[in-house]
């Protein structure tokens, strides 16, 4: 299989004798280049895992019709773990896992798999709990439409403004409207086509469905001592009414801290102010010793939640 020649792990920053490794689990959608700013931590090895290059992730679902998953969360985490072994420094004593969206859920599974002490940054990621399953198993089309508009705005670095009520639109009507508004607002180019935007939406929805099904069928055990920094966007993909603040992570760990950033799920990755807040919070968080350090956690709170 040709896919086997790909490595999903990219060593963005090499620090031969580094005692800390930062592992970024990137599920795609927006560019992973945003993690490069983390090389400001010169004493840490920085690895970015492009999940789209993993056969177990990419081939999990290739059709909307099927609801069965070809691979499970365990398959994916095993592959990530296996590939990471080739890169992790022998001197590494601590791993900080940063996972955006689905990457946060996978990061939680990876933290349980790694033998090196870990901590997790769950970047606008919903905790994999049975109580959250209804939020991740099925999503109304109108919600997917809203996310797609936010996604387009983020990747094109220009807010797509749509004032027409679209919640009752069919998929074809919605995509045609997005294309029309995108062209008028200069977000799409004159050489872009409706078929191209349709393909983009189809792929977006397919990836979303895959990630949601993987999360909804993954029920991990608690890791009470795992330090988890939850970074929440201004408007996350889903509002979790049962856990409005921690998005469920406090059910899995007793050592959770929360930082809020402006912008939505996608724009937090492209907005410089949000990125500065995220990197600042991660920088402080990565100084945590791997045990309860509530004093330092409170410091994070004071810094970023004023």
């Amino acid at each position, binding site marked *: 299989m040709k896919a086997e020649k790909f490595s999903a792990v990219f060593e963005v920053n090499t620090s031969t004798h580094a005692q800390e490794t930062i592992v970024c689990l990137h599920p795609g959608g927006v560019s992973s280049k945003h993690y490069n700013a983390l090389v400001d931590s010169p004493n840490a090895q920085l690895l970015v895992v492009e999940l789209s290059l993993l056969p177990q992730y*990419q*081939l999990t679902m*290739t059709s909307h019709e099927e609801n069965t998953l070809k691979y499970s969360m365990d398959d994916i985490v095993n592959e990530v773990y296996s590939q990471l072994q080739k890169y992790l420094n022998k001197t590494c004593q601590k791993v900080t896992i940063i996972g955006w969206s689905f990457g946060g859920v996978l990061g939680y599974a990876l933290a349980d798999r790694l033998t090196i002490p870990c901590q997790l940054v769950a970047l606008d990621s919903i905790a994999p709990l049975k109580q959250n399953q209804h939020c991740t198993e099925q999503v109304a089309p109108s919600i997917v439409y809203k996310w797609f508009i936010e996604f387009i705005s983020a990747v094109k670095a220009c807010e797509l403004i749509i004032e027409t009520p679209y919640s009752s639109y069919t998929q074809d009507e919605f995509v045609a409207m997005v294309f029309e508004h995108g062209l008028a607002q200069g977000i799409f180019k004159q050489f872009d*086509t409706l*078929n*191209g935007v349709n393909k*983009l939406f189809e*792929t977006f929805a397919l990836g979303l469905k895959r990630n949601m099904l993987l999360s909804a069928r993954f029920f991990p055990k608690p890791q009470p001592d795992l330090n988890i920094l939850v970074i929440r966007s201004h408007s996350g993909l889903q509002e979790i009414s049962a856990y409005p603040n921690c998005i469920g992570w406090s059910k899995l760990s007793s050592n959770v801290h929360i930082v809020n950033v402006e912008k939505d799920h996608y724009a937090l990755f492209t907005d410089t102010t949000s990125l500065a807040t995220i990197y600042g919070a991660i920088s402080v968080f990565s100084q945590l010793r791997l045990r309860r350090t509530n004093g330092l956690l409170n410091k994070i709170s004071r810094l970023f939640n004023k």
Partner: protein
Amino acid sequence: MTDSGIDQQSVQTWLVDKFAMRLEVPAEQIDVNMQFSDFNLASVEALLLAGELEKWLNVEMQPTSMWYFPTIHELSNHIVDDLLSH
């Protein structure tokens, strides 16, 4: 060549022209054997292009096509040999 008269070279030329347009470089600078991941082309742009290609050739590409066939040359061969010939 397929019944429609489309061969590997015409698909490859189409892709080269489209990549050049989106990357805003002359077509001569597009290496057909370079991995897609090495072009500075955002995945969103690649998908917009894939949708356009599907319309042109009336085929459906799997989301994994550009991943299994990661160069313009390999993808052109795949389209003509596997998609257009059926």
